[in-house]
């Protein structure tokens, strides 16, 4: 089946005072229609850069150094997002691919009512008049389970709670029924209970509207709840990818295992300690020559100084490691 979104060998750099720093190194992944891909990693690993590159919202000092992003538009065309002109790209943005952000507090413009801001999508992409927009916005607000939608839409963002605002963001993103929703840590800033509600909502809306989701998070617990497949990023590259089940059962990369060990899991046995990964993510301007994770990896040896690429590891999983965990089991 043709993927809805295919990212191939994407390379992105940032121009800074000391020259250009590479933020994404040959990143490739696919999002299947109606499915959810979770992009996982610590901050600075390149997940947000990837999502912004797809949306075409990179900062002005960012440069696409190579690669392709293919998107299957509603009319059946397969569009290379990096090659098309700005106007087509803009018409896709919002209408066919939409994005919600981590900070519901700051992602809404404080000086416009939420109704205005959601309705603006309809104005931009469907050219509806004010009355029609209002009807649609109310419908959408009801869909994202905002009570008293008809009065809420005249409120300003600061009059709402965090959870409500994220619902508004979701309503805003989904009102034009995009084929792809990019959610960049949409629940990180929220309370745990609200987090669960939002995830439920997204799952439900995905089922109803049939869209694909690119879900960006550092939280493996969330991944387990919402994603179909996972790609783990580290220092601007994907180090492991695969379906959620196999990957969670048997992570192939030492970094993935480290991540899983560092989060509390509901099924954790008494006495299991949380083990943080030692060290910090190296700055992008000073990456080690081979495997970027090697300096923090307990298993690293001289071989790890050689470059390493993703390769098939198990059923439906790929891993970029000179000493993958599955291989060790096989040897042992």
């Amino acid at each position, binding site marked *: 089946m043709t993927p809805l979104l295919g990212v191939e060998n994407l390379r992105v750099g940032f121009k800074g005072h000391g020259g250009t720093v590479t933020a994404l190194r040959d990143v490739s992944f696919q999002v299947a229609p109606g499915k959810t891909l979770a992009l996982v990693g610590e901050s600075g690993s390149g997940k947000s850069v990837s999502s912004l590159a797809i949306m075409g919202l990179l900062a002005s000092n960012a440069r696409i150094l190579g690669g392709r992003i293919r998107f299957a538009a509603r009319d059946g065309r397969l569009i290379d997002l990096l090659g098309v002109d700005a106007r087509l790209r803009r018409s896709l*943005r919002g*209408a066919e691919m939409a994005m919600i952000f981590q900070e519901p507090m700051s*992602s809404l413009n404080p000086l416009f009512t939420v109704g205005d801001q959601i309705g603006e999508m309809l104005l931009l992409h469907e050219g509806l008049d004010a009355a029609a927009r209002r009807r649609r916005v109310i419908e959408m607000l009801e869909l994202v389970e905002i009570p008293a939608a008809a009065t809420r839409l005249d409120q300003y963002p600061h009059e709402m709670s965090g959870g409500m605002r994220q619902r508004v963001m979701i309503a805003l993103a989904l009102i034009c029924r995009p084929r792809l929703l990019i959610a960049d840590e949409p629940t990180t800033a929220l309370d745990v209970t609200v987090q669960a509600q939002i995830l439920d909502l997204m799952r439900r809306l995905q089922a109803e509207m049939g869209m694909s989701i690119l879900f960006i998070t550092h939280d493996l617990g969330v991944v387990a709840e919402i994603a179909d497949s996972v790609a783990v990023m580290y220092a601007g590259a994907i180090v492991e990818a695969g379906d959620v089940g196999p990957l969670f059962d048997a992570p192939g990369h030492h970094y993935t295992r480290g991540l899983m060990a560092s989060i509390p899991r509901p099924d954790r046995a008494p006495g299991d300690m949380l083990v943080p990964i030692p060290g910090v993510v190296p700055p992008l301007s000073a990456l080690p020559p081979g495997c970027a994770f090697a300096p923090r990896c307990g298993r690293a040896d001289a071989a790890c100084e050689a470059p390493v690429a993703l390769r098939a590891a198990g059923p439906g999983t790929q891993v970029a490691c000179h000493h993958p965990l599955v291989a060790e089991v096989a040897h042992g």
Partner: protein
Amino acid sequence: MWRYVLKRLVGLVVVVFFVLTIAFVIVRLAPGDPAALLLGPDATAADAASLRERLGLERPIFLQYLAFLGGAVTGDLGQSIFFNQPVTQVLAQRAEPTVFLALFSLLFAVMIAAPIGIYAAYRRGSFLDQGAVSLAMLAASVPSFWTGLLFQRYLATDLGWFPSSGYGGPDAGFLERMRHLMLPSLVLGIVNSALILRFTRASMLDVLGEDYIRTARSKGMGEARVILRHALKNAAIPIVTVVGLTFALLVSGAVVTERVFNLPGMGNLVVNSVLRRDYPVIQGTLIVVATLYVAINLAVDLLYAVIDRRVKY
């Protein structure tokens, strides 16, 4: 909100009280007998004594002060010596050119500064950005009378695009009078655009880094709409603040500019009053301008609430 307004109004009253006190003290500190000063060289001692009596200068200073405050509160700022008219009346006659000069200058300043400031922020670090910032700094470094002299000399006298001075004759209608204000306003506008440009640029830079601008872009709108609808409204608050601040600069600049262009405004009046030793007029102008400044700043603060619903008082 109303509580806040009330609180601010009380603050304003206190500030105005200090303004009045300072103005009173300044004039009372003048060396020599105020009555003799007021009457000029030809006056006799008897004249001075009778004027002192009439002005109440024989009373204890504290009573004079109270009388002065009482007068000011009831809108009596004393009597102009030169014009032999109430100071308030003299000032009222000079208000029109000054007020419109201020308005037009501000308008020109914003018209110059806002687009450049916005564009400079949008193209941060570009050649145009650096050029605009340097120009703004230069505009703020050149004395306004210098610009005024050159503009008057070349744009008015030589090219004849503007009247070179004055405020129109007896049959000058409103439009004609305003036409006389265009060149001086342009001069003041250019000088004052500097601060507004820098504020606009800085606050646009802040706003352009905000998450909701990214959200706006993610909605698929054009850059013009992002900038003009989503960014500008948010950047407006600091800009409004600086426009309030500019008022003080404007008054200072207006004194010089009114002089160069011979506008019958309050600035020119003050300079003339210095030469005429008309202290009550100087004092009255100080009071009126300072009070206006305080009131405008209050108005600006209240305007925030209208622009931004988040501001709670």
